[in-house]
């Protein structure tokens, strides 16, 4: 008896296992199984925090004690009673608005200069690309801070050219933000590499036809290269504008928002609000306003797309 039941159970197990196997090996199952890491990761590390932050943004939550529902109070305070938030938003917008177009303009200009190969092009490419590989590191941020210090290399080099300077670049509200912009623009290399690759994909016959019609180099750039690059420019503009809004490390290490909050990025203000002043609810509301601002900005960019971005399907 006992033996029979066991063997029957074994048979049942084997059949179930076989069916499970067949199920797992179906394409529709395999697809879900292989996509599972992303499904779990997206839920656990993005979706849940997002939902949580939406809830927290309507609470008074001081990390130490639990969240207490306060309705829209955080948003009202944020939008009407917190000049520092508006200042930080202004600084962030200004930073993104200046550094991203400058970065892309440099990237495009240098890519054009490097498009025709010369014996030294390899070296030039390394020199222009390297800063964007190293620029995001804390080491470079620390270096930048020392370079623009009163006894730093910038003033020393100015001194070599006869401009005696003890100017404090980081200490003056008018110039501090520009040291951060300079650091960002300095890293135009990766966009340049992207533009170079895109330029090389433009068919040569277009230039041939244009030059037969008597178009000079500038005209060829204006009428062929630039229009065909607009999809690439647009894509990089959107991505870099978003990351410009999220700048944190450079500001946190180089200026800490000083002087007089003239370099206080919204991300740094949000970090301080949550982890220095323990106002997690208020910081969450800030995050949602930030998301909204970034969303609106991206939306505006997409609306302008049809006016200046070349679309081969149209």
């Amino acid at each position: 008896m006992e033996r029979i039941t066991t063997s029957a159970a074994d048979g049942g197990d084997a059949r179930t296992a076989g069916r499970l196997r067949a199920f797992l090996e179906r394409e529709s199952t395999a697809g879900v199984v292989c996509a599972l890491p992303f499904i779990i990761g997206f839920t656990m590390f993005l979706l849940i925090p997002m939902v949580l932050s939406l809830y927290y943004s309507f609470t008074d939550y001081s990390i130490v004690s639990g969240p207490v529902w306060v309705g829209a109070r955080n948003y009202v305070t944020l939008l009407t009673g917190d000049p520092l938030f508006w200042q930080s938003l202004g600084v962030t917008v200004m930073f993104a608005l200046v550094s991203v177009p400058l970065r892309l303009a440099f990237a495009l200009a240098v890519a054009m200069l490097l498009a025709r190969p010369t014996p030294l092009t390899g070296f030039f490419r390394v020199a222009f690309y390297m800063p964007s590989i190293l620029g995001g590191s804390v080491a470079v941020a620390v270096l930048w801070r020392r370079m623009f210090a009163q006894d730093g290399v910038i003033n020393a080099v100015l001194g070599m050219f006869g401009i005696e300077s003890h100017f404090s670049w980081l200490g003056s509200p008018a110039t501090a933000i520009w040291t951060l912009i300079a650091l960002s623009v300095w890293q135009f290399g990766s966009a340049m590499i992207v533009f170079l690759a895109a330029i090389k994909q433009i068919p040569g016959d277009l230039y041939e036809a244009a030059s037969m019609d008597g178009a000079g180099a500038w005209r060829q750039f204006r009428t062929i290269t630039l229009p065909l690059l607009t999809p690439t420019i647009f894509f990089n503009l959107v991505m870099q504008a978003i990351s410009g809004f999220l700048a944190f490390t450079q500001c946190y290490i180089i200026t800490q928002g000083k002087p007089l909050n003239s370099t206080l990025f919204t991300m740094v203000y949000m970090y301080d609000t949550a982890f220095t002043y323990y106002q997690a609810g208020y910081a969450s509301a800030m995050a949602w306003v930030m998301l909204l601002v970034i969303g609106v900005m991206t939306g505006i960019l997409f609306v302008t797309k049809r006016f200046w971005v070349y679309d081969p399907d149209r």
Partner: protein
Amino acid sequence: MSMTRSHRRKAAAPKELLAPVRRPSSRLARLAYYILMVASSLLMLYPIIWMVFSSFKPTDQVFSTAGQLIPRQWTLANYTNGMKGFSGVPFWRFLVNSLIISALATVGTVLSSAIVAYALSRLRFRGRKLLFVLVLGTMMLPAQVLLVPQYLWYERLGWTNSYLPLIVPYWFAIQGFFVYLFMSFMNDIPRSFDEAAKLDGCSYYGIFFRVILPLVKPAVVTATIFSFMWRWDDFLSALMYVSDTEWYPASLALKLFTDPGTTSDYGAMIAMCCVSLVPSILIFAVFQKQLVQGSTSSGIKG
């Protein structure tokens, strides 16, 4: 590319038509071009070059002779002093911490992104389109905005004061960039490969491990170096989740050098900055081609 372009042009057009295209630039213009490019290249690299040379200056001369590039006297003292680290923790310990975090997070990123990309690019299943949109969404979604709720969530999971938030999420393909990178490589592999393996009795999982993964080795290399460099440079999450000095990664330890009162040994600070950049510079030197490939394959798409 432009080589082939000019070849094509030569083949297609009769010689006299080439004249306006191949206008020989004057020697003066070429000289001006080289001067401009060499000067701006050096200007671009100057901060890095300055940092490397300064690290060999005696620490009291780093700023008093900031305008001079070459040290008057060479010394390794900054390196030996810097390596002593902080509060009894030697600097190499921070480097090892960085290495552990970056390596574990990178292995997870590469494996999970590759298999998710396989599902999205090869397999038909319900919800695939939605997942693809979500993957693209994570590339656009400013995830750092979520740093506060993420912190509270990890705290609830009991993950704060550990490396878990710095490693575990990366095992779940949360960076759309890498999924997208793998997908663009996989889309180039002919379907007939999968079908042949299927006929040979390979399961869909077998196809991934035996057929697809070996064929996207270039993407594996590219994803590995990008992920490693980004994790190595990561500062914000270390700042939030690592609180014991001995567990600091190098990026966070460098920040200590700038804190007032910690140290005023600028020579050691600069020397350790140089040390912490070595992995990125090595990767750049060895894998420049893959870096370029990675930047372009995800940056050109309009």
